[in-house]
C-alpha cells in the first residue's frame, strides 16, 4: 500500500514540531546560561547565542554555601540509593526466587507503598523529626529518601532477578558453590545493568526531592540543591542568566545519566509499576 505524499509528510512534520516543543525549554535554559546579560535582557530574544560567557556560572557557583549544598545533595542521594539497593536486593531476591505464604501480599504492600503521598505527609514527618531533635540534620533526610525509593527499587529489581535464569544458579551450586557464593558470583554480575538502571531512578528521585527538605532543614548548612535553586531567584532577583546557570548545573548530570540509561531502565520501570 503506497501512502500519498501528504500521508508521508505529515507524521514527519508533526514530529519535527513536537521535537522543537519538547527540546526548546531545555535548550533555552542552557542557551540563557551561556549568554551575556545584554543578550538576555534584550527586547528581541537572541535565539542562538554567539558570545559565550561563563560569568553566570561563576555567579551561581560563587553563591553562599553552594559547595555545602552540592556536598549535602550528593551525600544524601548516594547514601539513600546505596541503602535502598542493599535492602531491596535481599527482598527482591526472596520475591523473585522463592515461593512462600503471603508473597503476593508483600508485593501488593510494596506497590501501595510506592504510591505513598509523601508531599502530603510532611507535617507528620516534621513532627516526628522535631520530637527526635533531628531537624537540620542529614540523617532523617537520608532515611526518608531511602524509603521513598525503596518500593520502586524492590519491585524493579525483582524483575531483573527473575530474568536471570535459575539454572545458572543451580549449576553453580552443583559445582560446589554455596548459595551465597552462587548469588555473588553468578547473579550479581548479571544484575549489574539492572542495578545501574534502578539506582538511576532512585538517584533522580532523591536528587529532586524538595518538599521534605523544605520543611525539615531551615538551616543553610543542612540544605540541598533543590532548595538552593528555588531560593536563587529570591536572592538574585531577576538575574535570569545566573538562575539558568544554576538550573543547568542542577539538571545536566541527570540529563546525561538519563539519556544514557533510559532504554534499559524504562522496561524495568513499567515492569515494576504496571505489572506487580
Amino acid at each position, binding site marked *: 500500500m503506497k501512502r500519498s505524499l501528504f500521508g508521508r509528510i505529515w*507524521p*514527519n512534520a508533526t*514530529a519535527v514540531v*513536537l*521535537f522543537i*516543543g*519538547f*527540546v526548546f*525549554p531545555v535548550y*533555552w535554559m542552557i542557551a540563557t546560561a551561556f549568554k551575556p546579560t545584554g543578550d*538576555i535582557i534584550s527586547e528581541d*530574544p537572541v535565539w542562538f547565542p554567539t558570545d559565550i560567557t561563563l560569568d553566570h556560572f561563576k555567579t551561581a557557583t560563587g553563591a553562599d554555601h553552594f559547595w555545602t549544598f552540592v556536598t549535602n545533595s550528593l551525600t544524601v542521594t548516594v547514601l539513600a540509593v546505596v541503602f535502598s539497593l542493599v535492602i531491596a536486593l*535481599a*527482598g527482591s531476591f526472596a520475591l523473585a*526466587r*522463592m*515461593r*512462600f505464604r503471603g*508473597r*503476593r501480599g*508483600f508485593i*501488593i*504492600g510494596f*506497590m501501595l*507503598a510506592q504510591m505513598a*503521598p509523601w*508531599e*502530603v*505527609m*510532611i*507535617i*507528620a*514527618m*516534621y513532627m*516526628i523529626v522535631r520530637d527526635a531533635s533531628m531537624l537540620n540534620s542529614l540523617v532523617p533526610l537520608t532515611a526518608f529518601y531511602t*524509603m521513598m525509593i*525503596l518500593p520502586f527499587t524492590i519491585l524493579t529489581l525483582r524483575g531483573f532477578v527473575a530474568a536471570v535464569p*535459575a539454572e545458572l544458579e543451580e549449576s553453580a*551450586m552443583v559445582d560446589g558453590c*554455596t*548459595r551465597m557464593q552462587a548469588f555473588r558470583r553468578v547473579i550479581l554480575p548479571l544484575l549489574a545493568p539492572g542495578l545501574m538502571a534502578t539506582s538511576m531512578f532512585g538517584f533522580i528521585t532523591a536528587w529532586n526531592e*524538595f*518538599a521534605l527538605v523544605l520543611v525539615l532543614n531551615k538551616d543553610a548548612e543542612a540544605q540541598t540543591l*533543590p532548595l538552593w*535553586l*528555588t531560593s536563587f531567584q529570591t536572592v538574585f532577583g*531577576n538575574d*535570569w542568566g545566573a538562575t*539558568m546557570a544554576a*538550573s*543547568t548545573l*542542577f*539538571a545536566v548530570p541527570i540529563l546525561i*545519566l538519563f*539519556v544514557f540509561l*533510559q532504554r534499559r531502565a*524504562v522496561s524495568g520501570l513499567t515492569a515494576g*509499576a*504496571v505489572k*506487580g
Partner: protein
Amino acid sequence: MTVQTERPPSGPADVRRTAGGGGSGRPNPRASRVGALAPYLLLLPACAATVLLLGWPLLKDLLLSFQNLNMAQLIQHVTEWNGIDNYTEVLTGEDFWRVTLRSILFTAVNVALTMFLGSLVGLLLARLGKRMRFTLMIGLVLAWAMPVVAATTVYQWLFAQRFGVVNWVLDKLGRHSMADYSWTSDQMSTFFVVTVLIVWMSIPFVAINLYAATTTIPGELYEAAALDGAGAWKSFTTVTLPFLRPFLYATTFLEIIWIFKAFVQVYTFNQGGPDRLTEILPVYAYIEGVGNQHYGMGAAIAFLTILIMIGLTAYYLRIVLKQEKEEEAGL
C-alpha cells in the same frame, strides 16, 4: 548427588521445589523449615523500613489530626487532644471544599490532556521512520529527564513578564496586550502555565510506554483484520485499542497519582498564589499546616487528602488487587 545432600538445603532451587512445587511430592521437613524462614528474613529489612519510615508517619498524621497543635503547643511541647474539632472545622469551612474541587478539576484536566496527547505522540512514534523516531525520542527523553525544580524555574523564565520568550512571541503574533503580561498575577493564567509544564513533563512517559506497547502487538492480528476487510480506522479500534487498554489503564492511574500531588510544580511556580487561588490540596495542607502553623489542622487536611486520593484511584486499585488475588489462587 552426595555433594547436594551434604550442603545446607537452602538453595533457591531447593526452596522452589519444596515450598512451591504443588504436585512434586512431600518436601523434606528439614529443608522446608529453613526454606520457609529464609524469604521472611530476606524481606525483614524492607518491611522494617516501611513500617518505621512510612507506616509511622501515616499513623502520626492521623494522631496529629486529633490534636490542637498550633505554634504555642509546638513550642511548649504539649499535647492537647481535641477530638474531631479539626475535622469539623475543615469540613464545615468553605475553603476545603473549594480547594478539593479545584484539585480534582486540575487533576482531571491535566491527566486528560496528558493521556490524550501522550497517546497521540505514542502512536505517532510507531508510525515514524527509524531516524525520525530516534530524534523525537531524544526530545521526549530530555523533557522527561528534566528535574522538576529546574523545569519549573525554566518555565518561570519562559513565561517571565519582562524578556520572557512567550510574551515576545505573543506580542509578535499580534496580541500586543500580552507584551508585558504577568502570568503569575491571575489564577487561570497561573494554572495555564502549570498545566503546560505538567503536560510537557508527563507526555514522554505515556508516549514512550505506549509506543513500547504497540511494538508488542503481533503483526498477524493486523493481517487478520486486513483479510476481514478492515480499514485503517477499523483495525485501530479492533486491534490496537483493545491491545493497549491495560497500558492505558495503568498509565492513567499512575498519572492521576502523580498529578494529584503535584506539590513542587504548583508551589515553586507561584506559591499557590495569587491570593491563595491556585492552592491544590497538598499545597493547601502545607500552607495551613506549616505556613500558618496550624499543624493539627494541616494534618487533618493531609489525612482527608489521602482519603480522596484513594477514592480517586479506587477503581483501578480494585482491579489490581483482584488480579493479584486470582494469580495467587492460580499458583
